[in-house]
Protein backbone atom coordinates (compact mmCIF):
# COMPACT_ATOMS: atom_id res chain seq x y z
CA UNK A 1 0.00 0.00 0.00
CA UNK A 2 1.43 3.23 -1.05
CA UNK A 3 1.93 6.12 1.22
CA UNK A 4 0.31 9.17 -0.30
CA UNK A 5 -0.71 7.17 -3.27
CA UNK A 6 -3.21 9.83 -4.20
CA UNK A 7 -0.56 12.23 -5.27
CA UNK A 8 -0.05 10.27 -8.41
CA UNK A 9 -3.33 8.53 -8.93
CA UNK A 10 -5.77 11.16 -7.78
CA UNK A 11 -7.23 11.61 -11.22
CA UNK A 12 -5.42 14.90 -11.61
CA UNK A 13 -3.95 15.07 -15.04
CA UNK A 14 -0.35 14.19 -15.69
CA UNK A 15 -0.82 15.09 -19.31
CA UNK A 16 -3.88 16.15 -21.16
CA UNK A 17 -4.91 14.42 -24.31
CA UNK A 18 -7.86 14.17 -26.60
CA UNK A 19 -7.62 10.42 -26.16
CA UNK A 20 -9.24 10.92 -22.81
CA UNK A 21 -12.37 12.24 -24.44
CA UNK A 22 -12.77 9.09 -26.47
CA UNK A 23 -12.30 6.96 -23.41
CA UNK A 24 -14.66 9.19 -21.47
CA UNK A 25 -17.42 8.71 -24.00
CA UNK A 26 -17.15 4.95 -23.93
CA UNK A 27 -16.92 4.95 -20.16
CA UNK A 28 -20.06 6.95 -19.74
CA UNK A 29 -22.10 5.24 -22.39
CA UNK A 30 -23.55 2.79 -19.94
CA UNK A 31 -23.62 4.24 -16.44
CA UNK A 32 -24.14 1.57 -13.84
CA UNK A 33 -26.10 2.63 -10.82
CA UNK A 34 -25.99 -0.66 -8.96
CA UNK A 35 -22.55 -0.24 -7.47
CA UNK A 36 -22.29 -0.19 -3.72
CA UNK A 37 -19.53 0.51 -1.25
CA UNK A 38 -16.91 -2.11 -0.88
CA UNK A 39 -17.54 -3.72 -4.22
CA UNK A 40 -15.74 -3.20 -7.48
CA UNK A 41 -17.69 -2.62 -10.65
CA UNK A 42 -15.34 -3.18 -13.56
CA UNK A 43 -17.25 -4.11 -16.71
CA UNK A 44 -14.52 -2.64 -18.94
CA UNK A 45 -11.73 -4.69 -17.39
CA UNK A 46 -10.38 -5.87 -20.72
CA UNK A 47 -10.03 -2.36 -22.21
CA UNK A 48 -8.86 -1.06 -18.86
CA UNK A 49 -6.07 -3.62 -18.76
CA UNK A 50 -4.98 -2.52 -22.22
CA UNK A 51 -4.89 1.09 -21.08
CA UNK A 52 -3.05 0.04 -17.94
CA UNK A 53 -0.29 -1.54 -20.03
CA UNK A 54 -0.09 1.66 -22.07
CA UNK A 55 0.19 3.77 -18.90
CA UNK A 56 2.83 1.47 -17.49
CA UNK A 57 4.92 1.72 -20.64
CA UNK A 58 4.44 5.48 -20.68
CA UNK A 59 5.64 5.65 -17.10
CA UNK A 60 8.58 3.41 -17.79
CA UNK A 61 9.93 5.15 -20.87
CA UNK A 62 8.87 8.74 -20.20
CA UNK A 63 7.32 9.76 -16.90
CA UNK A 64 9.60 7.88 -14.51
CA UNK A 65 12.91 8.89 -16.16
CA UNK A 66 11.72 12.49 -16.59
CA UNK A 67 10.59 12.69 -12.98
CA UNK A 68 13.90 11.27 -11.85
CA UNK A 69 15.78 13.97 -13.76
CA UNK A 70 13.37 16.62 -12.48
CA UNK A 71 13.62 15.39 -8.91
CA UNK A 72 17.40 15.30 -8.83
CA UNK A 73 18.18 18.38 -10.97
CA UNK A 74 15.72 20.83 -9.37
CA UNK A 75 16.50 21.86 -5.79
CA UNK A 76 13.84 20.69 -3.33
CA UNK A 77 13.04 24.26 -2.29
CA UNK A 78 12.16 25.14 -5.87
CA UNK A 79 10.20 21.90 -6.27
CA UNK A 80 8.18 22.83 -3.19
CA UNK A 81 7.49 26.28 -4.64
CA UNK A 82 6.34 24.81 -7.94
CA UNK A 83 4.03 22.51 -5.99
CA UNK A 84 2.63 25.40 -3.95
CA UNK A 85 2.21 27.53 -7.07
CA UNK A 86 0.28 24.79 -8.82
CA UNK A 87 -1.88 24.14 -5.74
CA UNK A 88 -2.64 27.83 -5.43
CA UNK A 89 -3.85 28.04 -9.02
CA UNK A 90 -6.22 25.14 -8.43
CA UNK A 91 -7.89 26.95 -5.51
CA UNK A 92 -10.38 28.96 -7.63
CA UNK A 93 -11.58 25.71 -9.20
CA UNK A 94 -11.81 24.09 -5.76
CA UNK A 95 -13.76 27.09 -4.48
CA UNK A 96 -16.21 26.91 -7.41
CA UNK A 97 -16.83 23.25 -6.55
CA UNK A 98 -17.31 24.10 -2.88
CA UNK A 99 -20.04 26.54 -3.92
CA UNK A 100 -21.73 23.83 -5.99
CA UNK A 101 -21.47 21.44 -3.04
CA UNK A 102 -22.81 24.00 -0.59
CA UNK A 103 -19.63 23.56 1.47
CA UNK A 104 -19.22 26.93 3.19
CA UNK A 105 -16.33 25.83 5.39
CA UNK A 106 -14.27 24.58 2.46
CA UNK A 107 -15.11 27.67 0.43
CA UNK A 108 -14.10 30.07 3.18
CA UNK A 109 -10.89 28.20 3.81
CA UNK A 110 -9.91 28.20 0.15
CA UNK A 111 -10.73 31.89 -0.38
CA UNK A 112 -8.60 32.77 2.64
CA UNK A 113 -5.81 30.48 1.51
CA UNK A 114 -5.84 31.99 -1.97
CA UNK A 115 -5.78 35.52 -0.57
CA UNK A 116 -2.93 34.79 1.86
CA UNK A 117 -0.78 32.69 -0.42
CA UNK A 118 -1.18 34.96 -3.44
CA UNK A 119 -0.09 38.00 -1.43
CA UNK A 120 2.13 36.96 1.49
CA UNK A 121 3.10 33.81 -0.36
CA UNK A 122 4.32 35.87 -3.36
CA UNK A 123 1.99 34.72 -6.10
CA UNK A 124 1.54 31.31 -4.49
CA UNK A 125 5.21 30.29 -4.46
CA UNK A 126 5.05 29.82 -0.71
CA UNK A 127 2.39 28.43 1.59
CA UNK A 128 2.14 30.65 4.67
CA UNK A 129 -1.56 29.78 4.97
CA UNK A 130 -0.76 26.20 6.03
CA UNK A 131 1.57 27.52 8.71
CA UNK A 132 -1.37 29.55 10.01
CA UNK A 133 -3.37 26.35 10.25
CA UNK A 134 -5.34 26.88 7.03
CA UNK A 135 -4.61 23.58 5.36
CA UNK A 136 -5.83 22.96 1.88
CA UNK A 137 -9.31 21.60 1.44
CA UNK A 138 -8.97 19.84 -1.87
CA UNK A 139 -11.97 19.00 -4.00
CA UNK A 140 -13.06 18.45 -7.59
CA UNK A 141 -16.16 18.13 -9.72
CA UNK A 142 -16.18 14.36 -9.19
CA UNK A 143 -16.84 15.11 -5.53
CA UNK A 144 -19.52 17.63 -6.47
CA UNK A 145 -21.25 14.89 -8.47
CA UNK A 146 -20.93 12.60 -5.44
CA UNK A 147 -22.52 15.27 -3.23
CA UNK A 148 -25.32 15.60 -5.78
CA UNK A 149 -26.02 11.89 -5.46
CA UNK A 150 -24.52 10.65 -8.73
CA UNK A 151 -23.41 7.01 -8.48
CA UNK A 152 -19.75 6.07 -8.72
CA UNK A 153 -20.29 4.15 -11.94
CA UNK A 154 -17.76 1.81 -13.49
CA UNK A 155 -14.06 1.68 -12.75
CA UNK A 156 -12.09 3.15 -15.64
CA UNK A 157 -8.38 3.42 -16.23
CA UNK A 158 -7.74 6.49 -18.33
CA UNK A 159 -4.74 6.85 -20.59
CA UNK A 160 -2.25 9.37 -19.09
CA UNK A 161 -4.41 10.01 -16.02
CA UNK A 162 -4.60 6.52 -14.58
CA UNK A 163 -7.31 5.05 -12.36
CA UNK A 164 -10.72 6.73 -12.33
CA UNK A 165 -14.44 5.97 -12.37
CA UNK A 166 -17.09 7.10 -14.81
CA UNK A 167 -18.23 9.70 -12.29
CA UNK A 168 -14.70 10.98 -11.75
CA UNK A 169 -14.00 11.00 -15.47
CA UNK A 170 -16.92 13.36 -16.02
CA UNK A 171 -15.56 15.39 -13.11
CA UNK A 172 -12.14 15.56 -14.71
CA UNK A 173 -13.51 16.84 -18.00
CA UNK A 174 -15.73 19.44 -16.30
CA UNK A 175 -12.92 20.63 -14.02
CA UNK A 176 -10.64 21.07 -16.98
CA UNK A 177 -13.20 22.76 -19.25
CA UNK A 178 -14.52 25.13 -16.61
CA UNK A 179 -11.35 25.88 -14.66
CA UNK A 180 -11.68 29.59 -13.78
CA UNK A 181 -7.94 30.16 -13.95
CA UNK A 182 -7.66 28.72 -17.43
CA UNK A 183 -10.74 30.60 -18.61
CA UNK A 184 -9.78 33.97 -17.13
CA UNK A 185 -6.09 34.12 -17.94
CA UNK A 186 -4.98 35.33 -21.38
CA UNK A 187 -3.60 32.76 -23.79
CA UNK A 188 0.11 32.46 -23.08
CA UNK A 189 -0.27 32.74 -19.29
CA UNK A 190 -2.94 30.12 -18.98
CA UNK A 191 -0.46 27.43 -20.01
CA UNK A 192 1.65 28.28 -17.00
CA UNK A 193 -0.90 26.66 -14.74
CA UNK A 194 -0.93 23.46 -16.81
CA UNK A 195 2.84 23.47 -16.96
CA UNK A 196 3.19 24.00 -13.21
CA UNK A 197 0.74 21.20 -12.62
CA UNK A 198 2.66 18.76 -14.82
CA UNK A 199 5.90 19.75 -13.07
CA UNK A 200 4.30 19.30 -9.64
CA UNK A 201 3.08 15.82 -10.63
CA UNK A 202 6.58 14.92 -11.83
CA UNK A 203 7.86 16.03 -8.43
CA UNK A 204 5.31 13.76 -6.72
CA UNK A 205 6.25 10.87 -8.99
CA UNK A 206 9.82 11.33 -7.83
CA UNK A 207 9.04 11.82 -4.13
CA UNK A 208 6.88 8.70 -3.93
CA UNK A 209 8.89 6.67 -6.36
CA UNK A 210 9.41 3.70 -4.03
CA UNK A 211 5.70 3.31 -3.46
CA UNK A 212 4.66 3.85 -7.06
CA UNK A 213 7.34 1.51 -8.38
CA UNK A 214 6.20 -1.11 -5.92
CA UNK A 215 2.65 -0.92 -7.26
CA UNK A 216 3.49 -0.64 -10.95
CA UNK A 217 6.52 -2.92 -11.21
CA UNK A 218 6.77 -5.12 -8.15
CA UNK A 219 3.16 -6.11 -7.72
CA UNK A 220 2.07 -9.42 -9.25
CA UNK A 221 -0.99 -7.82 -10.81
CA UNK A 222 -0.39 -4.10 -10.91
CA UNK A 223 -3.78 -3.53 -12.54
CA UNK A 224 -5.82 -4.92 -9.65
CA UNK A 225 -3.50 -3.31 -7.07
CA UNK A 226 -3.89 0.12 -8.68
CA UNK A 227 -7.64 -0.39 -8.95
CA UNK A 228 -7.99 -1.45 -5.34
CA UNK A 229 -5.81 1.35 -4.01
CA UNK A 230 -7.52 3.99 -6.09
CA UNK A 231 -11.04 2.95 -5.09
CA UNK A 232 -10.18 2.58 -1.41
CA UNK A 233 -8.58 6.01 -1.35
CA UNK A 234 -11.23 7.73 -3.43
CA UNK A 235 -14.14 6.34 -1.44
CA UNK A 236 -12.41 7.43 1.74
CA UNK A 237 -11.83 10.93 0.35
CA UNK A 238 -15.47 11.28 -0.58
CA UNK A 239 -17.28 9.57 2.23
CA UNK A 240 -14.78 9.47 5.00
CA UNK A 241 -14.62 6.09 6.60
CA UNK A 242 -17.58 4.94 8.58
CA UNK A 243 -17.20 2.00 10.90
CA UNK A 244 -19.53 -0.08 8.75
CA UNK A 245 -16.78 -0.31 6.19
CA UNK A 246 -14.46 -2.13 8.51
CA UNK A 247 -14.68 -5.85 8.58
CA UNK A 248 -13.43 -7.83 11.51
CA UNK A 249 -10.87 -10.46 10.60
CA UNK A 250 -11.15 -11.95 14.07
CA UNK A 251 -14.49 -13.35 13.20
CA UNK A 252 -17.49 -11.18 12.77
CA UNK A 253 -19.29 -13.79 10.73
CA UNK A 254 -21.44 -11.16 9.05
CA UNK A 255 -18.62 -9.17 7.62
CA UNK A 256 -15.89 -11.70 7.02
CA UNK A 257 -16.95 -15.27 6.52
CA UNK A 258 -13.41 -16.23 5.54
CA UNK A 259 -12.22 -16.08 9.07
CA UNK A 260 -14.75 -18.18 10.84
CA UNK A 261 -11.87 -20.09 12.39
CA UNK A 262 -11.38 -17.01 14.46
CA UNK A 263 -14.97 -16.71 15.55
CA UNK A 264 -13.87 -17.29 19.10
CA UNK A 265 -10.23 -18.19 19.51
CA UNK A 266 -10.57 -18.37 23.28
CA UNK A 267 -13.22 -21.06 23.15
CA UNK A 268 -10.85 -23.14 21.05
CA UNK A 269 -8.04 -22.64 23.48
CA UNK A 270 -10.07 -23.47 26.55
CA UNK A 271 -11.44 -26.74 25.25
Amino acid at each position, binding site marked *: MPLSFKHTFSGKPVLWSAVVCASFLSACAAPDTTVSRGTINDPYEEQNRGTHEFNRSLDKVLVRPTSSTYGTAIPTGLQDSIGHFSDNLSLPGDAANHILQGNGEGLGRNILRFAINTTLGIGGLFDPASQMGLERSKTDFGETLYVWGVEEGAYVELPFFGPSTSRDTVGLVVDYSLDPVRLLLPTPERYISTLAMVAARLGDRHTYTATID*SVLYESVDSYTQARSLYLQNRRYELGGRSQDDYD*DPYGDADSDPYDSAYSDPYEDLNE
Partner: protein
Amino acid sequence: MSNTMTSRRRFLGTTAAAGSVALLLPGMAHALTDARARALIDQVVADINRVISSGQPLSGMIRDFERIFERYADVPIIARSALGPDARGLSGAQLNAYVDAFKGYITRKYGKRFNEFKGGQVTVKDARKVKTFHEVRTTVKLRGEAPFEVNFLVSDRSGRDLFFDMIIEGISLRLSEKEEIGAMLDRRGGNINQLIQDLRNAG
Protein backbone atom coordinates in the same frame (compact mmCIF):
# COMPACT_ATOMS: atom_id res chain seq x y z
CA MET B 1 -12.21 -31.71 10.43
CA SER B 2 -10.42 -32.66 13.62
CA ASN B 3 -7.19 -32.32 11.72
CA THR B 4 -7.90 -28.75 10.71
CA MET B 5 -9.14 -27.97 14.18
CA THR B 6 -5.88 -29.16 15.61
CA SER B 7 -3.82 -27.12 13.22
CA ARG B 8 -5.99 -24.11 13.85
CA ARG B 9 -5.60 -24.55 17.53
CA ARG B 10 -1.86 -24.87 17.20
CA PHE B 11 -1.79 -21.74 15.10
CA LEU B 12 -3.91 -19.89 17.59
CA GLY B 13 -1.87 -21.26 20.44
CA THR B 14 1.30 -19.86 18.93
CA THR B 15 -0.38 -16.54 18.37
CA ALA B 16 -1.72 -16.29 21.85
CA ALA B 17 1.18 -17.90 23.69
CA ALA B 18 2.70 -14.60 24.68
CA GLY B 19 -0.65 -13.37 25.88
CA SER B 20 -1.30 -15.99 28.50
CA VAL B 21 -2.84 -13.25 30.63
CA ALA B 22 -5.92 -13.64 28.48
CA LEU B 23 -6.09 -17.33 29.41
CA LEU B 24 -5.70 -16.73 33.10
CA LEU B 25 -8.28 -14.02 33.09
CA PRO B 26 -10.87 -14.88 30.46
CA GLY B 27 -12.84 -11.79 31.41
CA MET B 28 -9.94 -9.71 30.14
CA ALA B 29 -10.40 -10.94 26.61
CA HIS B 30 -12.80 -8.16 25.71
CA ALA B 31 -11.50 -5.61 28.12
CA LEU B 32 -9.68 -3.60 25.49
CA THR B 33 -10.54 0.02 26.06
CA ASP B 34 -10.04 3.16 24.02
CA ALA B 35 -7.32 4.13 26.45
CA ARG B 36 -5.43 0.86 26.04
CA ALA B 37 -5.75 0.91 22.26
CA ARG B 38 -4.50 4.45 22.28
CA ALA B 39 -1.64 3.56 24.59
CA LEU B 40 -0.48 0.90 22.12
CA ILE B 41 -0.56 3.32 19.20
CA ASP B 42 1.15 5.99 21.31
CA GLN B 43 4.04 3.55 21.59
CA VAL B 44 3.92 2.68 17.88
CA VAL B 45 3.88 6.35 16.93
CA ALA B 46 6.70 7.22 19.35
CA ASP B 47 8.80 4.47 17.76
CA ILE B 48 7.89 5.58 14.23
CA ASN B 49 8.74 9.20 15.02
CA ARG B 50 12.05 8.13 16.47
CA VAL B 51 12.93 6.21 13.31
CA ILE B 52 11.84 8.85 10.80
CA SER B 53 13.78 11.56 12.60
CA SER B 54 16.86 9.41 13.20
CA GLY B 55 18.57 10.37 9.96
CA GLN B 56 19.98 6.85 9.63
CA PRO B 57 20.41 5.17 6.25
CA LEU B 58 17.52 3.31 4.64
CA SER B 59 18.70 -0.18 5.61
CA GLY B 60 18.72 0.79 9.28
CA MET B 61 15.25 2.30 8.98
CA ILE B 62 13.89 -0.85 7.35
CA ARG B 63 15.28 -2.96 10.17
CA ASP B 64 13.71 -0.67 12.75
CA PHE B 65 10.33 -0.78 11.04
CA GLU B 66 10.53 -4.56 10.88
CA ARG B 67 10.93 -4.49 14.62
CA ILE B 68 7.91 -2.19 15.01
CA PHE B 69 5.80 -4.62 12.99
CA GLU B 70 7.02 -7.62 14.93
CA ARG B 71 6.38 -5.97 18.22
CA TYR B 72 3.07 -4.23 17.72
CA ALA B 73 1.26 -5.85 14.78
CA ASP B 74 -0.78 -9.05 14.74
CA VAL B 75 0.98 -10.34 11.67
CA PRO B 76 -0.54 -13.88 11.83
CA ILE B 77 -4.09 -12.58 11.51
CA ILE B 78 -3.11 -10.21 8.70
CA ALA B 79 -1.45 -13.15 6.95
CA ARG B 80 -4.43 -15.46 7.37
CA SER B 81 -6.87 -12.84 6.30
CA ALA B 82 -4.79 -12.02 3.21
CA LEU B 83 -5.04 -15.65 2.15
CA GLY B 84 -8.78 -15.76 2.75
CA PRO B 85 -10.66 -19.05 2.45
CA ASP B 86 -7.59 -20.82 1.07
CA ALA B 87 -6.07 -20.67 4.56
CA ARG B 88 -8.54 -23.34 5.63
CA GLY B 89 -7.04 -26.13 3.59
CA LEU B 90 -3.53 -25.70 4.93
CA SER B 91 -1.76 -28.12 7.22
CA GLY B 92 -0.40 -26.74 10.47
CA ALA B 93 3.13 -26.81 9.12
CA GLN B 94 2.09 -25.07 5.92
CA LEU B 95 0.23 -22.40 7.84
CA ASN B 96 3.23 -21.74 10.07
CA ALA B 97 5.53 -21.57 7.06
CA TYR B 98 3.13 -19.26 5.27
CA VAL B 99 2.72 -16.90 8.24
CA ASP B 100 6.47 -16.83 8.66
CA ALA B 101 7.12 -16.06 4.97
CA PHE B 102 4.36 -13.47 4.95
CA LYS B 103 5.87 -11.77 7.97
CA GLY B 104 9.20 -11.31 6.21
CA TYR B 105 7.47 -10.10 3.06
CA ILE B 106 5.22 -7.58 4.77
CA THR B 107 7.88 -6.12 7.03
CA ARG B 108 10.32 -5.67 4.12
CA LYS B 109 7.67 -4.17 1.87
CA TYR B 110 6.23 -1.70 4.34
CA GLY B 111 9.49 -1.01 6.10
CA LYS B 112 10.78 0.32 2.79
CA ARG B 113 7.75 2.53 2.31
CA PHE B 114 8.16 4.22 5.66
CA ASN B 115 11.18 5.89 4.16
CA GLU B 116 8.70 8.33 2.66
CA PHE B 117 7.76 9.46 6.16
CA LYS B 118 11.33 10.66 6.68
CA GLY B 119 11.42 14.06 8.36
CA GLY B 120 7.68 13.90 9.04
CA GLN B 121 5.73 13.85 12.26
CA VAL B 122 2.98 11.46 13.34
CA THR B 123 0.46 12.57 15.99
CA VAL B 124 -2.15 10.42 17.73
CA LYS B 125 -5.58 12.07 17.56
CA ASP B 126 -8.22 9.88 19.19
CA ALA B 127 -9.58 6.37 19.65
CA ARG B 128 -13.05 4.85 19.38
CA LYS B 129 -14.58 1.42 19.63
CA VAL B 130 -15.68 -0.21 16.38
CA LYS B 131 -17.39 -3.58 16.53
CA THR B 132 -15.10 -5.79 18.64
CA PHE B 133 -11.98 -3.69 18.12
CA HIS B 134 -10.73 -0.13 18.36
CA GLU B 135 -9.76 2.43 15.79
CA VAL B 136 -7.00 4.85 16.68
CA ARG B 137 -6.67 7.84 14.39
CA THR B 138 -3.35 9.52 13.77
CA THR B 139 -2.30 12.42 11.59
CA VAL B 140 0.85 12.46 9.53
CA LYS B 141 2.50 15.69 8.52
CA LEU B 142 5.10 15.49 5.79
CA ARG B 143 7.12 18.36 4.38
CA GLY B 144 5.18 20.34 1.80
CA GLU B 145 2.02 18.24 2.15
CA ALA B 146 -1.33 18.76 3.81
CA PRO B 147 -1.64 16.49 6.87
CA PHE B 148 -3.29 13.15 6.20
CA GLU B 149 -4.88 10.43 8.27
CA VAL B 150 -3.36 7.08 9.18
CA ASN B 151 -5.68 4.87 11.22
CA PHE B 152 -4.70 1.79 13.19
CA LEU B 153 -7.17 -0.96 14.05
CA VAL B 154 -6.33 -2.52 17.40
CA SER B 155 -7.62 -5.75 18.90
CA ASP B 156 -6.71 -7.85 21.92
CA ARG B 157 -8.23 -11.02 20.55
CA SER B 158 -4.85 -12.53 19.82
CA GLY B 159 -4.24 -12.40 23.56
CA ARG B 160 -2.25 -9.20 23.36
CA ASP B 161 -3.11 -5.65 22.36
CA LEU B 162 -1.90 -5.52 18.76
CA PHE B 163 -2.86 -3.66 15.62
CA PHE B 164 -4.18 -5.75 12.74
CA ASP B 165 -4.54 -3.06 10.11
CA MET B 166 -3.03 0.25 9.16
CA ILE B 167 -5.16 2.45 6.95
CA ILE B 168 -3.38 5.23 5.14
CA GLU B 169 -5.75 7.76 3.60
CA GLY B 170 -8.39 5.09 3.38
CA ILE B 171 -6.06 2.45 1.97
CA SER B 172 -6.07 -0.63 4.15
CA LEU B 173 -2.86 -2.64 4.36
CA ARG B 174 -4.82 -5.81 5.08
CA LEU B 175 -7.29 -5.45 2.21
CA SER B 176 -4.58 -4.42 -0.26
CA GLU B 177 -2.55 -7.47 0.69
CA LYS B 178 -5.62 -9.66 0.34
CA GLU B 179 -5.78 -8.52 -3.25
CA GLU B 180 -2.05 -8.99 -3.81
CA ILE B 181 -1.72 -12.41 -2.15
CA GLY B 182 -4.85 -13.57 -4.01
CA ALA B 183 -3.24 -12.53 -7.31
CA MET B 184 0.03 -14.22 -6.35
CA LEU B 185 -1.77 -17.46 -5.59
CA ASP B 186 -3.72 -17.31 -8.87
CA ARG B 187 -0.49 -16.83 -10.79
CA ARG B 188 0.84 -19.99 -9.20
CA GLY B 189 -2.23 -22.01 -10.01
CA GLY B 190 -3.20 -22.15 -6.34
CA ASN B 191 0.08 -23.78 -5.35
CA ILE B 192 0.53 -22.67 -1.76
CA ASN B 193 4.00 -24.16 -1.35
CA GLN B 194 5.21 -22.19 -4.35
CA LEU B 195 3.59 -19.07 -2.88
CA ILE B 196 5.38 -19.61 0.43
CA GLN B 197 8.65 -20.13 -1.40
CA ASP B 198 8.26 -16.95 -3.45
CA LEU B 199 7.05 -14.84 -0.52
CA ARG B 200 10.37 -15.48 1.19
CA ASN B 201 12.07 -13.35 -1.46
CA ALA B 202 9.27 -10.88 -2.19
CA GLY B 203 8.74 -7.38 -0.82
